[in-house]
């Protein structure tokens, strides 16, 4: 696979990651609690930026870790059956997102274990320092690992085939793009937009976000299947 195609896959995977909503929900709760506790605008900005920083660092670490594992296990030439498994995983997770991502309730409640949701909600309430917000960011990435694992795994498989310098570029592209939603919310909150408007938009458009994330995962799975497996088989024939 050439470098532009590889980076295109990483970019699409990162966009899918960015469309997942758990970290956005935690950021919304964190801002609401901080504003409700009469924190200054500067403190709210520091807390929320700490949270976004934590999400960014954990995304970088997780992607690098998965890439390192794959590099050790498969080397730069991943077997075709692994690519096929990953394509199946992408399509499977895409279907699961279509059917199960949001609970059938009002609001933006997600299909994650309720104990975990309560823990994140309580932690967002208790967070008073930037370091705590940073660690909440780290935790929230791990909490949505069920959903973000598929785009991360395919990105890691693509990245380990690239030359060293491009691997770093790819990881940076993934981290920055996956943070775009959080950065947008951070800017909106920092510029004084109402939390209620942000949450109303999220609630109103949740089915669109769910459909586009699930659809994009299935499309990515199909694209990787054609790009990697079919083209290699056709080339060998």
């Amino acid at each position, binding site marked *: 696979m050439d470098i532009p195609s590889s980076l295109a896959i990483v970019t699409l995977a990162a966009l899918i990651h960015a469309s997942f909503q758990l970290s956005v*929900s935690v950021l919304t709760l964190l801002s*609401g609690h901080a504003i*409700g506790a009469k924190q200054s605008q500067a403190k709210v900005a520091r807390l929320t930026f700490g949270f976004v920083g934590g999400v960014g660092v954990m995304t970088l670490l997780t992607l690098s870790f998965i890439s390192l594992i794959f590099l050790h296990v498969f080397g730069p030439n991943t077997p075709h059956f692994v690519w096929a498994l990953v394509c199946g995983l992408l399509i499977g997770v895409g279907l699961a997102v279509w059917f199960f991502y949001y609970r059938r309730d009002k609001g933006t409640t997600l299909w994650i274990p309720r104990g975990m949701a309560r823990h994140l909600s309580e932690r967002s309430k208790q967070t008073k320092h930037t370091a705590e917000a940073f660690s909440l960011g780290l935790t929230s990435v791990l909490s949505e690992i069920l959903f973000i694992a598929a785009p991360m795994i395919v990105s890691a498989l693509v990245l380990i085939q690239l030359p060293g310098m491009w691997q770093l570029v790819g990881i940076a592209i993934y981290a920055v793009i996956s943070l775009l939603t959080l950065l947008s919310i951070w800017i909106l909150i920092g510029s004084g937009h109402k939390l209620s408007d942000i949450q109303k938009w999220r609630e109103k458009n949740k089915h669109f976000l769910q459909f586009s994330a699930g659809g994009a995962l299935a499309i990515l799975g199909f694209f990787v299947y054609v790009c990697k497996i079919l083209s290699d088989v056709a080339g060998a024939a």
Partner: protein
Amino acid sequence: MHEGKAIDIVKRNGRRPTESYDIEKLHASIVAACLSAQTASGQAESIARAITKDVETWLETRPEVTSHDLRRVAARHLKAHHPDAAYLYEQHRITL
């Protein structure tokens, strides 16, 4: 204000220990919702006072209520004063 009459709040359909009704807790949660909706501090306090009064009137005939009902009634009264704050108050438990 409810002085002398204890009202039990059943939390999460009994899955967490029952608590006594705490007017300060209700007041603080409404103030927080109003502040989150960018209401001035003084106005948030005055809305919270009005809502707690309404909720206490509703509680007068009830020895025991669920936390869900308490929240629902408070949100209904808050909606009349500040729809955005009521929305955030309702959404708090269903954001994640």
